[in-house]
């Protein structure tokens, strides 16, 4: 998708005016909000839990090299093959090579946002591999040839009617539009694919340094099956996903479920410490874990925003963000949308090309409040803006602020400016909202307030 701000604005304009879309998203999120608030209230202290989670992630990320070394040595000791990928291209090549070595043809995938990030499916399909998404939401958007709409709820933007039509068109199988029937269609389609797949591909939510484990959180059981049946398993994980200790999961798993889905725990939370071990009756003979950098080390180097790497990809910030709620996930044009996406995408993909995501925010701070690991999200948006303007100031905008600076705190100029505004008001009514109106970006949809004859400073001066 394109990076330009004008295309972002075009998409945003279309979506923001789409009242049907707005209602679908509000309804979907309302259900989530009710259970999320209930689950947070069930905690004896959600705020203490947040602080501990934030400190644990600080410890993980600020000793990242030590934890990655411990993780890797423990995984390798039990037969896992660990690969390190600096770039998306390297990660794709590592994974493709594994598939070639195994002479694999079909791959069953469980949900992995990192695989979206590196555009894995497209690359594998180009080479002739068949890739099937097993997570229902991912399966649905895969059939629609579109990216996931939300990092946790990929098909949140679709109604049951749309999904029924999709299944009818692509699968020839859609008995009704009931979520139950549609889910059973997907279940039926997936069954044989699990069994037939040569390779199972997963993402991961956490990597435990102490015990050398990868932890996967899900509700459907598709990741469990992906990790159980195929002979070869491949897991892709961002390097920042480490947690120091096994016991840390006792805090993170319920917090991830609460913030991400309004559940006390998701249905399956599974820790893998190796391929099939001696004495075990099933599981992959080979397990490859691919550790992905893809410019995370650049974000790490920005100590002011390093905590953005604490993100556990729960999606809570997306759910509360008024921008996300009104323009939707696809408008962003990038893998990670919402507030966390607006913060990290300029780091992972280029500041000047993606700064508009950091600009498209009213800085309300709901995201920072919602984040279970206390990332200072909305302040990072401000910092991205500062960094972008410092590196590449916009000439006219900078000039405008300089002029404003001259006028604002110089009483005579300020008075003059207000007088001019008041005098030209009647003229403005004539061109209000039209292409001639310099205030068109406001007046297209809103009225301007009338300027009173006597301003506050006039009144204050007249008192004396």
């Amino acid at each position, binding site marked *: 998708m394109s990076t330009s701000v004008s295309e972002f604005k075009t998409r945003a304009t279309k979506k923001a005016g789409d009242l049907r879309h707005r209602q679908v998203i509000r309804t979907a999120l309302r259900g989530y909000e009710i259970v999320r608030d209930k689950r947070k209230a069930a905690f004896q202290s959600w705020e203490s839990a947040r602080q*501990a989670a934030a400190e644990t992630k600080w410890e993980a990320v600020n000793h990242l090299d030590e934890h990655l070394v411990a993780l890797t040595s423990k995984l390798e000791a039990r037969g896992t093959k660990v690969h390190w990928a600096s770039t998306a291209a390297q990660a794709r090549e590592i994974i493709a090579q594994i598939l070639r070595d195994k002479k694999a043809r079909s791959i069953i995938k469980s949900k992995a946002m990192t695989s979206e990030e590196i555009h894995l499916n497209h690359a594998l399909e180009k080479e002739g591999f068949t890739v099937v998404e097993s997570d229902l939401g991912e399966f649905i958007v895969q059939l629609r040839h579109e990216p996931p709409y939300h990092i946790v709820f990929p098909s949140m933007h679709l109604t049951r009617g749309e999904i029924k039509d999709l299944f009818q068109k692509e699968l020839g199988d859609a008995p009704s539009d009931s979520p139950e029937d549609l889910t059973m269609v997907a279940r039926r389609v997936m069954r044989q694919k699990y069994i037939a797949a040569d390779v199972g591909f997963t993402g991961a939510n956490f990597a435990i340094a102490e015990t050398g484990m990868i932890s996967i959180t899900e509700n459907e059981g598709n990741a469990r099956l992906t990790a159980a049946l195929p002979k070869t398993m491949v897991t892709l994980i961002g390097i920042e996903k480490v947690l120091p200790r096994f016991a840390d999961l006792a805090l993170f798993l*319920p917090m991830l479920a609460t913030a991400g889905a309004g559940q006390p725990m998701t249905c399956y939370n599974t820790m893998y410490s190796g391929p099939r071990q001696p004495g075990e009756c*099933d599981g992959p003979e080979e397990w490859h874990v691919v550790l992905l950098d893809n410019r995370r080390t650049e974000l790490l180097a920005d100590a002011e925003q390093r905590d953005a790497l604490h993100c556990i990809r729960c999606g809570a910030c997306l759910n509360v963000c008024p921008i996300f709620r009104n323009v939707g996930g696809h408008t962003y044009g990038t893998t990670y949308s919402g507030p966390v996406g607006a913060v990290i995408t300029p780091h992972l993909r280029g500041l000047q090309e993606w700064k508009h995501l950091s600009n498209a925010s009213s800085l309300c701070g709901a995201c920072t409040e919602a984040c279970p690991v206390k990332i200072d999200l909305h302040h990072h948006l401000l910092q991205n803006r500062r960094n972008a303007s410092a590196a590449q100031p916009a000439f006219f905008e900078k000039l405008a602020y300089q002029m404003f600076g001259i006028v604002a705190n110089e009483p005579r100029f300020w008075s003059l400016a207000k007088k001019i505004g008041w005098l030209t008001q009647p003229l403005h009514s004539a061109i209000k909202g039209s292409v001639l109106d310099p205030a068109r970006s406001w007046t297209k949809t809103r009225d301007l307030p009338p300027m009173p004859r006597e301003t506050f400073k006039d009144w204050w001066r007249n008192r004396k």
Partner: protein
Amino acid sequence: MSERENILGRIREALKVPAPLPGSHGDTTAHATAEPPASHAREWLPSVGASVTEQFELFAKNAADLKADFQLLASRDELKAALVKLRDAEKWQRIASHDGELSNFACKSLGLPVTLTDRGYEVQEMEKCDAAITECDALIAQTGGVAVTSRSAGGRALSVLPPHHVVIARREQLVADLPSAFALLQQKYAPDFPSMISFITGPSRTGDIERILVLGAHGPKKLTVLCV
């Protein structure tokens, strides 16, 4: 230089500049405490009663909320009766299971053809099974969930492939909360962990279509926990 060294090198270079601790208001000299921050998780997670009775009540309530079937049974006879009742109500014809004291008892009680996983199995055969009978490592009162491993519950697929998962547990296996469950698993297995540890909290589900809850997305549609 390998990519491993490249990445670790970039990390070490980046970490030369300290980042402030959360809540320290930008003070980069604040030190983390020696104790793991999450060690007090028990005090912040949802509360669990102190007595075993309260904990079983909480487990029962949570299981019900999850639409899992939980039965606390007084004896092996009651366990057998409960299994037979399930078999007849669900019309099971074939089951899958693994070798274990409780699971063997359960299979014997049911008197049905059994696919055992311990020495390997054909997946297509497991697909024909109506239910999986497994043991577990723990029942967790706080969540209404069970902990299983590839070592204690017949492998990786058994507890997720068949459409009905039945867990046979002992009363002593009930633990209060998640911190206790993790401590138990670590104590029981470290350093030679089973390659899979899974916390199962209710039957399989999805909300991907209009956020409407549907059970049995890919994993079992039904989860029964029989505790004796």
